[in-house]
C-alpha cells in the first residue's frame, strides 16, 4: 500500500494506462510541461512525450471534437477540461456527437473517450471554477458519468474509465485532490463494468446517506458526529450517476428506512431528484420518511466568501438527518 493524494492517485492511474496501452493519449490545456493546473498530469509529458500528452489549443469543443476523430481512428483519448465551468463550449460535441455516435452507427463505431473534469467547490475560487454540472451529462443517453471519492477509487476508476468502450465523464472532486488515502498500486484496476457499482463507505442501521464525489467525505464526517450522539448512519458512495446503482442503495434504504441524498449541485432538477424518485419507488413500504435532499441552492455558484453557506456542510446534512429521523 502507498499513501497518495487523490490527484496523485489519478496521476498514477493515468501513468499506468499510458504504459499499458500505446493508443491512450492525454489531451488538454496546460497538461504538458505544466502538468495541468492541478498537477494531475505531472511528469507525464516528460515521460511519454508531446505526441501522447498533448497540449491543445484553448478550445474545448476542439479538444473533444478532435478526440472523437482520434477515437474513430482507434485511439483512446483522455481529455482534460481545465475547470467544470469551462466544459460548456464542448457541450455540443459531448451531447450531440460523442454520446450518440455508437447509437447512430448501430454499434459500428465505438468512442472510448474519457473527459476528466475537476468539479465542485470549497476551494475559494473565482466564478466558473466551482460548479457541479454532472446532472446535465447523466441526463444524456450514451454517456457514463462517474466520480471517485477516494484515492484508491481515483487510481482504479480512471483506468476502468479508459478501458470502457463507452464515453465516460470523469468528474474529479477538486476540493478533495489533496486528501490522502491508501492505494494498492499493484492491484489490477478491474473490469470497466465495475464503474457502475456503488460501495458502502460506512455501515450503519438508522439512516442511509447517499453521496458521491466531494460529499462522501462530508457524509462520513456526519456519520462520525452522529455516532457520538447514538445515531448509526450508513454512507453509500454511489461512484456513478450513469448508470446508477439503485440496487445497492435500495438494499441499504430497505434496512434503514430513511434516506438523505447529498450533492453540491443545485437540488432543483439535480441528481438527488432522480435518486429520491427511484428510492421512493423501490422502497415505498420500507420508508419511514420522505427521501430528503441536501445540496446547492437554485442560484449561480455564489461568491467564494459565501460558498460555505451554499455547500452542503456538516450542519446542514445533520439537520436533514434529524428531520428524516423525526418525521
Amino acid at each position, binding site marked *: 500500500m502507498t499513501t497518495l493524494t487523490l490527484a496523485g492517485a489519478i496521476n498514477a492511474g493515468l501513468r499506468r494506462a499510458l504504459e499499458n496501452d500505446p493508443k491512450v493519449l492525454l489531451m488538454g490545456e496546460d497538461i504538458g510541461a505544466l502538468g495541468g493546473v492541478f498537477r494531475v498530469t505531472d511528469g507525464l509529458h516528460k515521460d511519454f512525450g508531446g505526441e501522447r500528452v498533448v497540449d491543445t*489549443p484553448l478550445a474545448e*469543443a476542439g479538444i473533444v471534437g*478532435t478526440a472523437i*476523430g482520434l477515437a474513430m481512428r482507434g485511439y483512446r483519448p483522455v481529455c482534460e477540461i481545465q475547470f467544470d465551468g469551462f466544459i460548456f463550449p464542448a457541450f455540443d460535441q459531448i451531447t*450531440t456527437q460523442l454520446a450518440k455516435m455508437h447509437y447512430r452507427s*448501430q*454499434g459500428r463505431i465505438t468512442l472510448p473517450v474519457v473527459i476528466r473534469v475537476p468539479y465542485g467547490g470549497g476551494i475559494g475560487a473565482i466564478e466558473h471554477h466551482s460548479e457541479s454540472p454532472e446532472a446535465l451529462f447523466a441526463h444524456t*443517453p450514451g454517456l457514463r458519468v462517474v466520480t471517485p471519492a477516494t484515492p484508491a477509487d481515483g487510481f482504479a476508476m480512471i483506468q476502468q474509465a479508459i478501458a470502457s*468502450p463507452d464515453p465516460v465523464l470523469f468528474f474529479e472532486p477538486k476540493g478533495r485532490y489533496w486528501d490522502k488515502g491508501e492505494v494498492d498500486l499493484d492491484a489490477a484496476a478491474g473490469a470497466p463494468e465495475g464503474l457502475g457499482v456503488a460501495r458502502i463507505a460506512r455501515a450503519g442501521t438508522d439512516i442511509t446517506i447517499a453521496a458521491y464525489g466531494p460529499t462522501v467525505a462530508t457524509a462520513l464526517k456526519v456519520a462520525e458526529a452522529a455516532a457520538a450522539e447514538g445515531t448509526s448512519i450508513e454512507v453509500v458512495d454511489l461512484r456513478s450517476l450513469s*448508470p446508477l446503482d439503485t440496487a445497492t442503495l435500495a438494499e441499504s434504504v430497505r434496512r434503514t428506512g430513511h434516506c438523505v441524498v447529498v450533492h453540491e449541485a443545485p437540488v432543483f432538477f439535480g441528481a438527488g431528484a432522480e435518486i429520491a424518485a427511484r428510492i421512493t419507488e423501490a422502497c415505498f413500504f420500507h420508508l419511514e420518511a420522505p427521501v430528503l435532499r441536501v445540496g446547492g441552492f437554485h442560484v449561480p455558484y455564489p461568491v467564494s466568501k459565501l460558498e460555505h453557506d451554499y455547500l452542503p456542510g456538516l450542519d446542514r446534512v445533520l439537520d436533514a438527518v434529524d428531520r428524516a429521523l423525526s418525521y
Partner: protein
Amino acid sequence: MSQIAPPDDVDLIQLLTPTGQRVDRPDYSPRIAHLDAAALRGMYRDMLLTRRFDTEATALQRQGELGLWAQSLGQEAAQVGSGRAAAPQDMIFPAYREHGVAFVRGLELTKILRQFRGIDHGGWDPKDHNFHLYTLVIGSHTLHATGYAMGMQRDGVVGTGDPQRDAATMVYFGDGATSEGDTNEALVFAAVNNAPVVFFCQNNQWAISEPTSRQSRVPLYRRGQGFGIPSLRVDGNDVLACYAVTSEALERARSGGGPTFIEAFTYRMGAHTTSDDPTRYRSAAEEQYWRDRDPIDRLLALMKAEDAVDDAWLAELDAEATAFGEHIRTTVRSFERPSSDFMFRNVYAGPHAIVDDERAWFEAYQRTFADAPATEGGH
C-alpha cells in the same frame, strides 16, 4: 441580395468555361492531362446518376415515402470532381448532401435514404468505403475529420512516400458552416498540428435562406488563409477544376504538407430541403443565371466538342439511369420499420442498468398487448 457571380478580384480557378471550352492554366492543367475521353465519360456518368438519384429521392419525399430530402442538385461537379481525387485509403467526412461523393466512393446510394425514411440514423459502415456517416449538426464533423487526420499522423501513414499507404482526410461542409465555432476550431487544430486534412467548402450561396453575405464580409476561402492554411477558390461547377485542385490538396496532405482550404463556388439549384421554399428569399433571375451554368451541361458540351461521346453511349446511359431510378424506388418502398427494440440497441457498447431495465420493462409492457391487433405506431 445574394452574390450571383464571384467578385472580380478573386482568382477563380477554372479549367472549363460555362460553355464547355477548356481554359489552359500552367498550374492546374497538368493535373487533368491524364483524363482521357473514358475518364470524362466516367465523370459525366457519376454526375448524371447522382442527379437521377437526387431527383428520385425528391419525388419519393413528395409521395410520402421519405420524411425529408436534402437535394444535391447543382453541386454534382464539386462533389464528383473532388470525390474522384480521393484515394481509397483517404477518409471522407460528408455533411448531409454529399450524395455525389457517396456515389463516387462506391456507396449503395439507397442506404442514404434509410436515414431520410426514418428507419435508421446512418445505414452503412463507414469503414466499407472510408466514408463516414452524414453529420447534421453543422460543422461538428470538421473536428472529427481533423482528429482522424491527427490519428493518421500518429499511425505513420503520412509522408512515407508510398502512394498506396499515405492517406489524408477530407471534410465537406457549406458556406454556413464556416461561421460555426467548431469549423474555426478545426482550422486551428489542423493548422497547429499540420494535420493531413482537406477542408472542402461547397459555397452554394445559401444557408437555407441566408446568403453568404450574412456569413462573411470576405470571400470564404480567405477565412482559411487567416489560419495560415493554403486556401483557394475553385469554380465548383467545373468538374475538371474541382478534380485538379482537390488532387493537389490531397497530395499535399498525404505527403505531410498539411491542410488546405478549398472553397468550391457553386450553387444550390434546389431548395435547402424539401421543407424549404426558396421563392421567399431569392429571385428567378438568379436561379436562371445558375441554370445557365449547369455543371452537367458544361461537361457534356466539352465531350461533344472533343468527340468524347456519341449518341449510342448517351442512350445507354439514359437506359442505365432509368433502371437506376426504378431500383431506387423499389428499394425504398421495401424498407420496413424496424422493431421497437431497435431504439434500445447500441446506446452503450457495454451493459447499462438504466437502459437495460427500461428495455426489459417496455418489452414486458408490449407483451401485454400480444392479443390486440397490431398498429402501425405501436402502443
